[in-house]
């Protein structure tokens, strides 16, 4: 029987595993996390009692449902938590599991690797107390911690209001919810969002909650700086009217939407294409998630669609696997799943207009802002390198000349902003700035893991 390996135990990976198991397969489910659920449905660390129903709010039912389904599925699949897939070579995965390097052969690979925050740097963003929005949620769901007592949420994302509402419900103070996209642009994007009224209403409800609680909610802001002496003390920004406003806080959560984790897809042979709507490089797949022979992508790691789309696309990828293995037509329910995934992803594309990636603001960043925090490379150093004779003109050469994107995160954090800086300096299209190429290891691996190499 074909060896089917799924990477990622979020809603997409779990749904794919469930469907394959139901059809008589015994998939291996690898997950970097210690517990299933992915980022959105992340559950507390063992031994920690958290009121997840209160925390998840309107999504509590789905949270409970997914974990119940996984509990039922777990005995019937080969589930391997704590497994970092760091390289792919032909039909071989390179994994670090419990500190030991291993390999795993596969015939079919479903990647459901999820997404991470997309970040825009600003002066002071490397101060202790500044987190990604996702990091702020991980602290809450996994550890039951706030990132601060009084938290400012900055960026351009519907998740700002969601995370703020989770924080507020559990007792944190919210200094401000500040969105860089002007309100008028949100209204203009509204028609495109009406195909998913439930998601739209939920988003509006979070904002309504915040406003009723007296939390300042600002649209069309220009971030000025995170201030503080050794730690975050305030977020300074200009509001839509151009007034400078200072919000005292001890933590800032930054989120400008999500960015698919495509490194493994790239290593496995997926082709990446520039998507102008998201201004991101996304793996090319068909509607069912086929990216290359034997390679299927599902969930936010393929295209941002949110948890519901992830679940549907996981099932869809599994249907595609079954159809391809059996050389049969896809099951009847695939049609409905396709329509659902298409609708939910279209909604996200609409959101990308309502919560826009602030290209002009990134290009206007002051020279002294650190762009690459791993290697401490400033925006000005990038501009200087590009301006010199025979200077680099695309992101990989900029990386070679400046070290931007060369550090621990391998450009996962600074990459999207670097792309805009490079495109801006040369006045070229985002796609022409190039794409930081993925290399194994996709995440750092310790020398000691190799010493203990196991088959």
């Amino acid at each position, binding site marked *: 029987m074909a060896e089917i390996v799924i990477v990622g135990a979020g809603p997409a990976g779990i749904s794919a595993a469930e469907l394959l198991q139901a059809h008589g397969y015994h998939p291996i489910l690898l997950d970097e996390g210690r517990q299933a659920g992915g980022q959105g449905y992340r559950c507390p660390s063992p031994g920690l009692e958290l009121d997840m129903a209160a925390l998840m709010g309107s999504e509590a039912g789905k949270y409970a449902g997914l974990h119940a389904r996984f509990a039922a599925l777990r005995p019937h699949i080969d589930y391997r938590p704590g497994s970092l897939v*760091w*390289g792919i*070579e032909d039909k071989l995965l*390179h994994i670090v599991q419990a500190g030991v*390097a291993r390999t795993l052969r596969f015939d079919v690979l479903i990647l459901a690797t999820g997404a991470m925050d997309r970040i825009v740097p600003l002066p002071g963003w490397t101060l202790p107390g500044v987190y990604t929005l996702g990091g702020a949620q991980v602290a809450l769901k996994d550890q039951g911690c706030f990132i601060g007592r009084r938290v400012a949420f900055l960026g351009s994302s519907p998740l700002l209001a969601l995370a703020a509402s989770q924080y507020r419900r559990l007792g944190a103070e919210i200094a401000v919810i500040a969105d860089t996209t002007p309100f008028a642009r949100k209204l203009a994007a509204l028609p495109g969002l009406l195909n998913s009224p439930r998601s739209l209403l939920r988003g509006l409800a979070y904002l309504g909650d915040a406003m009723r609680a007296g939390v300042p909610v600002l649209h069309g802001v220009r971030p000025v700086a995170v201030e503080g002496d050794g730690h975050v003390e305030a977020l300074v920004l200009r509001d839509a009217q151009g007034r400078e406003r200072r919000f005292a806080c001890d933590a800032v959560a930054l989120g400008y939407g999500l960015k698919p984790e495509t490194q493994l897809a790239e290593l496995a042979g997926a082709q990446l294409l520039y998507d102008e709507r998201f201004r991101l490089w996304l793996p090319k797949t068909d509607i069912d998630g086929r990216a290359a022979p034997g390679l299927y992508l599902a969930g936010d790691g393929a295209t941002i669609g949110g948890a519901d789309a992830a679940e549907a696309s996981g099932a869809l990828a599994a249907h595609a696997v079954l159809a391809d293995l059996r050389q049969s037509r896809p099951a009847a329910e695939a049609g409905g799943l396709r329509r659902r995934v298409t609708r939910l992803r279209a909604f996200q594309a609409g959101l990308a207009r309502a919560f826009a990636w602030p290209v002009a603001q990134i290009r206007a960043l002051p020279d002294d802002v650190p762009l690459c925090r791993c290697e401490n490379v400033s925006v000005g150093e990038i501009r200087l390198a590009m301006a*010199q*004779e*025979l200077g*680099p*003109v695309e992101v990989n*050469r900029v990386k*070679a*000349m400046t070290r931007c994107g*060369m*550090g*621990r995160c*391998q450009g996962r954090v600074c990459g999207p902003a670097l792309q805009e800086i490079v495109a801006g300096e040369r006045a070229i299209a985002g796609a022409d700035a190039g794409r930081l190429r993925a*290399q*194994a*290891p996709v995440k*750092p*691996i*310790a*020398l*000691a*893991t*190799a*010493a203990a*190499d196991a088959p």
Partner: protein
Amino acid sequence: MTRLSADVAIIGGGLIGAWSAYFLAKRNQRVVLIEKGVVGAQSSGTNFGNLRLQGRFPGQYPLSLRSQALWEEIEELIGERCEFEQTGHLYLAFDGTEHEKIEAYAAVSESHGLAIEHLGPTELRRRWPWLSHRVVGATFSARDATANPRLVTPAVARAAKSLGATMVENCRVTEIRQAGSAFTLRTDTGIEVGAGYVINAAGAWAVAIAEQFGESAPLFPAGPPQFVTEPFPYLIEPSIQAVDGSVIFRQIPRGNVILAGYPRTAADPAANRAPVPPGKTLSAMRALARVAPTLASCHVIRVWSGIEGYLPDMIPVIGPSGTTPGLFHAFGFCGHGFQIGPGVGLCLSEMILDGGTATPLDPFSIGRFAQPVEVSAKFSAEFDTMEPPR
């Protein structure tokens, strides 16, 4: 169509081409350098950065030492230091046979005037206490150095440009013709270059050019895998090489440890890619942890490689064409071109302008491939299963 006129046209914007352009421009030659991509992007920019004098091909010492003298004054020459650090090179032996090998290398180095320290276990523990106790002996050369390859070639090219050389990037030479004593180079961007002399420094792509003039060399491409760790407190000054080829490593002052290891892997010059197989990463990590156990908790964060040209006798082609007056070749540096780069550029400029160079380069003639050459013993150990071309 643009027509450029030059005294010397250089094909290839790697380290060799850039230094040649620099020394020629310095002597008021009109130089046009044509690079198919961007300067310093292939092995010139992706190599280990070692300026090693120990253990070189014996016939290369005069060139190597001359080149090292240029490296030692790089800042005066081009105005940038490019992270040049003269921190020495340590050769490690794990057993008696290897010890004999590094002592034989040392004898050659010493016969050319290089100062070598011969170190036993006690001295090694005293100077580098974190070194594995498996090391039975070592030789140290303080004049060996390192530099940052990513920075050097663009910096040399900039210096050449400021001396008046013309640099044409993203332009591929498609055809070269000689009529009388003048060459005409055609390119894929429509630029045409007329020149009295041509330097073929096209690296892994150089044979196609040589063959237009009825000569060849059994060049094949390969990629040396390289790896780098996250920053670790600075403790390793010299670059350190196990003579068994399992690992070579150095630490830069900002803390990252750069490592590489044999065997080299296959590379694809058509697709312009030299991927690093994950298995190589693991074996290099294992080898480093064996030599420096203190680094066991250190993480590898990045890997890379580049396409280098190799020849079966593991020494380069440097010198005049055997068929065509005015044409000079400098390619196939077999993974050790970084150190001799400036010296090769200087010698080429002398051959063109003075009709010859005092530095002996006879072993590197392209003519040696008219007969079958002896395949280097390094082949079996230093490459993945590859048949050396004949």
